[in-house]
């Protein structure tokens, strides 16, 4: 029986087999990249807020401590977003005619909260708690990045499970003295502390059981 395909097609079939595997690999790789993209995780995305509140301005330039506004970060799971009254502590006299702050004054006058858009939002099946992290000496910076350099705030990390675990497997290098948790640009060398030693002192544990975060 005569050959149906010419010899040269052998090469073609090899290419097709290899190509198929390659194509599949690329597809899987692309899907993986897609789940890590900022479109999926919200990383680095700046949301439109009712007032263009600048962390850079208020923390780096005016030197206001994070806890002046995020008052519950040390005691509770939720860090807290300041009520309008907190803005009015200063903005009753400062920039009190600026149109940029009109929504703040409006909110204060009508007793209606400003509706900030959530920047960080874990799925509801994940349990997160600020107080334990702060108490064990994990700085805001380790999870939120250089907030003091953000004119408009964005999510600095992916907040995916692999990110949480990357620290939970070995939290020691991210430990700092408790009185430095809100410091931005912290360097253990400047303070003459050894993170590993601190982790021991604070009894920092590696918590990777599923039930720690999924309860």
């Amino acid at each position, binding site marked *: 029986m005569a050959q149906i395909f010419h010899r040269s097609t052998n090469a073609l079939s090899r290419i097709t087999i290899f190509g198929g595997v390659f194509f599949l690999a690329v597809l899987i790789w692309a899907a993986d990249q897609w789940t890590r993209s900022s479109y999926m995780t919200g990383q680095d995305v700046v949301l439109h807020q009712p007032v263009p509140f600048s962390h850079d301005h208020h923390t780096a330039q005016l030197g206001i401590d994070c*806890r002046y506004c995020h008052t519950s970060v040390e005691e509770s799971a*939720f860090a807290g977003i300041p009520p309008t*009254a907190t803005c009015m502590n200063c903005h009753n006299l*400062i920039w009190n005619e600026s149109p940029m702050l009109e929504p703040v004054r409006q909110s204060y006058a009508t007793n*209606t909260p400003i*509706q900030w858009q959530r920047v960080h939002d874990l799925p*509801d099946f994940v349990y997160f708690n600020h107080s334990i992290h702060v108490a064990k000496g994990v700085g805001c910076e380790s999870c939120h990045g250089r907030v003091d350099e953000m004119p408009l705030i964005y999510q600095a990390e992916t907040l995916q499970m692999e990110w949480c675990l990357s620290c939970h497997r070995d939290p020691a290098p991210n430990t700092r003295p408790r009185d430095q948790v809100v410091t931005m640009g912290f360097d253990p060398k400047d303070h003459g502390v050894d993170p590993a030693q601190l982790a021991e002192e604070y009894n920092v544990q590696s918590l990777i059981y599923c039930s720690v975060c999924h309860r």
Partner: protein
Amino acid sequence: MKTRSAFLFALLVLATGCTDMKDQARFEPLESSAFFKNQQSARPLLERTVARGFLREDDAMYRGLAADGSFVQTLPVEVNAKLLARGQERFNIFCSPCHSRTGNGRGMIVQRGYKEPTSFHDARLRATAPGYYFDVITNGFGVMSSYASQVPPDDRWAIVAYIRALQLSQHTDVTLIAPYIRSRLEAGEVVDPAMSVEEAHDEHDGH
């Protein structure tokens, strides 16, 4: 039988699409709600009610008032190094933006145009009872707003104790300073205020 189980299986598959586990039917803190008029899901306390554990009957502790209605002259909490350290931290967070870390009233926000408060080292304020400071933090004073929602009562007392320490730091009778510290201060050295006599001697021998 086969069609029934196929049907049940199909239902099961469909059901997975019905609930969004990422956004479950509960309110997160401060989440908005379309149900209430001002769109707050967390409801404020009804008037004339007290939340469990928030009964504030002790006038000295929660209002800074003595039995006769005047401001208390002594703190109703024990003053120790721990309280002062806490007070220092809280003062630096909540008060220093305006009153500055030294309490002279020239904080950053004042430098940007806020009204300048009287220095805590002013003679009138040095003579004022601790209860007065507690009252100002709780209820505000003039253009300064109340800090009651940001600073809980225990921390208010810690801040009051620290303000007293700040005032002492600028107005103290030198003869009250222990001689071993005083001689060092007069020589222009920086001295750790917590240094004990033994430590001072040890360090001295080391030189």
